[in-house]
């Protein structure tokens, strides 16, 4: 008999956009909560505005909105109800849902929830012990930027993270393609909600959690900020170098735009690297035997190491160095992630049910629990896919009432469409060896 998941019996209502709110809900779903996205087709999740690039241009938006690949990683394991909370009847349905829910999480603009009459006090009327977590960019309380328009990538710039990423001799490269600040917002919310659930179990009390994505991002830089406050030392971007060890970088491997990361933490690891690279000039250079020597001549060190690494594949260099106890790994390109032996062995790529594609790929939740493992089996829901369950089963609305709400534009249904196939479905199975391909 497998144990019930940790959050069995917890229901979460999620009003969310893009990454921060959705990842929070995803993590809670992974631990067994029933997570329901309340989605307004008139103001949809950003990630639903556009879909797969290969869709015919005349594909109706009601289909397009369910196709974006990243939706599945951010929303696996959830249900979706299509509902406009700005309509009086829609708001009423939200309050009735809140009455049978435990947690509400919102990453909407600060003004949105109060203007809809869905602030903490409103929802507390519906459910006295509700855990209410809001996650706007700048918090709900009055503050200079509260009503500014922003999203994750802007916040990475504002928080100093972009400035600290890149080469010292160039303008900031920024954290670019990684939505780091969206993720820190999602973590902040999920951590606080989990702790609040633990407290509610004991006290029976709900709570309002007024979080801000910007604050959550700046918090990550604690020691860097303290260094300036205490010492007047403004830390700068350093490429991949660090002040305490060398070599510490990403070096060219054989092939076009292929790279291998090597981090030599101490002199013992340096000597181990030199044995692997026996015969190279740097391997017998006595200046490099100490960290201080390597740091003093770091330009020369990195240049000569590069002439060695570029003769081999990143995979080969990493295997040889790791066998000698030196931290190294090829810098994986996206396609490499599909065939990485370690990710494959731990089941990082998952397939789950998808209403449009039959099955869809998503990334596994990185926290692996031994006794109550995550067992999410569905990829992202389509917008409104679970109207019947949410409005019918949970709220007791009959079919006629649901049809009336759809006609009135309060409820958005997920229209049927011919089943579709991801373009890679026929060949990817040879790389990603997963059960259940459609």
């Amino acid at each position: 008999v497998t144990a019930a998941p940790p959050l069995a019996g917890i229901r979460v209502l999620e009003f969310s956009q893009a990454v921060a709110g959705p990842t929070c809900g995803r993590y809670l779903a992974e631990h067994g909560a029933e997570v329901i996205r309340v989605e307004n087709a008139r103001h949809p999740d950003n990630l639903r505005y556009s879909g797969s690039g290969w869709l015919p241009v005349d594909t109706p938006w009601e289909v397009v909105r369910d196709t974006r690949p990243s939706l599945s990683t951010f929303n696996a394991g959830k249900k979706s109800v299509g509902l406009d909370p700005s309509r009086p009847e829609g708001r009423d349905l939200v309050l009735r849902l809140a009455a049978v829910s435990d947690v509400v999480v919102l990453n909407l603009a600060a003004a949105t929830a109060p203007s809809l009459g869905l602030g903490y006090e409103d929802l507390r009327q519906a459910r006295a012990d509700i855990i209410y977590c809001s996650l706007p960019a700048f918090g709900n309380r009055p503050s200079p930027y509260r009503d500014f328009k922003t999203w994750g990538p802007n916040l990475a710039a504002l928080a100093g993270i972009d400035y600290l990423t890149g080469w010292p001799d160039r303008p900031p490269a920024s954290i670019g393609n990684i939505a780091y600040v969206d993720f820190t917002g999602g973590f902040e919310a999920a951590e606080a909600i989990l702790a609040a659930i633990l407290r509610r179990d004991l006290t029976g009390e709900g709570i309002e959690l007024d979080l801000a994505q910007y604050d959550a991002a700046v918090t990550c830089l604690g020691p860097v900020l303290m260094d300036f406050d205490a010492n007047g030392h403004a830390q700068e971007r350093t490429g991949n170098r660090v002040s305490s060890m060398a070599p510490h970088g990403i070096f060219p491997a054989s092939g076009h735009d292929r790279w291998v990361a090597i981090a030599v933490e101490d002199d013992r690891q340096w000597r181990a690297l030199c044995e692997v690279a026996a015969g190279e000039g740097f391997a017998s250079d006595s200046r490099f035997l100490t960290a201080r020597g390597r740091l003093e001549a770091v330009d020369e060190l990195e240049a000569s190491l590069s002439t060695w690494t570029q003769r081999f594949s990143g995979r080969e260099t990493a295997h040889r160095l790791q066998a000698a106890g030196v931290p190294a790994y090829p810098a994986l390109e996206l396609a490499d992630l599909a065939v990485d032996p370690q990710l494959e062995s731990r089941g990082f790529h998952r397939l789950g049910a998808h209403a449009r594609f039959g099955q869809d790929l998503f990334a596994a939740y990185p926290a692996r629990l031994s006794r109550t493992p995550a067992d999410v089996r569905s990829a992202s829901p389509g917008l409104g896919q679970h109207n019947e369950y949410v409005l019918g089963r949970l709220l007791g609305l009959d079919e006629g009432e649901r049809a009336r709400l759809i006609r009135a534009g309060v409820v958005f249904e997920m229209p049927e469409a011919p089943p579709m196939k991801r373009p890679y479905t026929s060949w990817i199975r040879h790389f990603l060896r997963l059960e259940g391909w459609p």
Partner: protein
Amino acid sequence: VRLLEGIRVLDVTDELGIWTSRRLADLGAEVVRLEPVNGDPLRRRPPFLRSEPGPDRSLWWAYWNAGKKSVAGDATTLKRLAPSFDALCFSGPAARYDELGAGRLAAGSGRLVVSSVTPFGLDGPFRDWDGAELVAWAAGGAAPLVGDADRAPVIPHGELGLIVAGRYALMGLLAALRAARRDGEGQLVDVSLQEALAFLTSETGLHTFLDDLIPRTRMGSHRVSGGPFGHFPALDGHIHIGAAQPAHWDALARWIHEETGEEAVLDESLRGNLSARFHTHDLVDFFTGELTRRHTRQDLFMEGQRRGVTLAPVNDIPAVLADPQLEARGFWDVLEVDGTPVRAPRGFRGRAPRLGEHTEEVMARC
């Protein structure tokens, strides 16, 4: 409110997963850090107060251990203490996990929850491979997405990857604590740094790439997916603009038109969300730069926000400390480091402990 009042946590993390135990202390758990009798090696991590090393002068140590207690001891102490605690936080190489016997503690009959952050996780062919921040960005496929197109991939300064792994461990640990309370049984929470970073790539990552075969290569602050997105030059630095929603672009286009007289930006074909300008991003980037280079970051920030454009200055660290928003939110608190007050993000409950400061108090209870 101390959400985790009454929960007791033993902390043997290293830098790989120290977020977990620090946040548990913030949330109100009693966190006891077990240090070697000659002091935690992390006490030697820079930066130091006034750049002078000393066991209580590492700002890094002070921040990540704020609000915890300290017991000096060894593996025997760990075995003795563990039964009196709800959770054990571990991070480091898998070999150290084995040495400490953390696996036996997790598999024991008690209700102890053990969280673990290791470079590659506790199983799989590379279980025993070594690595930390840099190697994880490479192994998770995140590094090649960051940096300039004509140079090597680059990772952000500040160990932001390690934080991510520690947060997955924390979420798993909190969930496992609830299950332990219910079932009287603990378990292991196993987090791989590689997977934590791989998860971060998911917006632009493998599954998106498979779907459209457009490589999301690094191109500085810009993205291949449309424009304008990224840093644009201002008189005194850079500003980040990302016209995500149709209304953001409409507002920006009107602004560009007013200031530069450029009619083309108002063209109907450019309207929509970011990807509507997938083929035209060079063009819209050019127009956007023509606007931004006329003003300072702060002027662009305030005027842009007035107009409903999503933008923000690219702040350096002194600018972050001076940001009026953080001040108004009461974001800063004072953390005492070796008797000196230092400004730090709020959330912690008291200073970091001195070596063995709570040994007597804690051992007396166990």
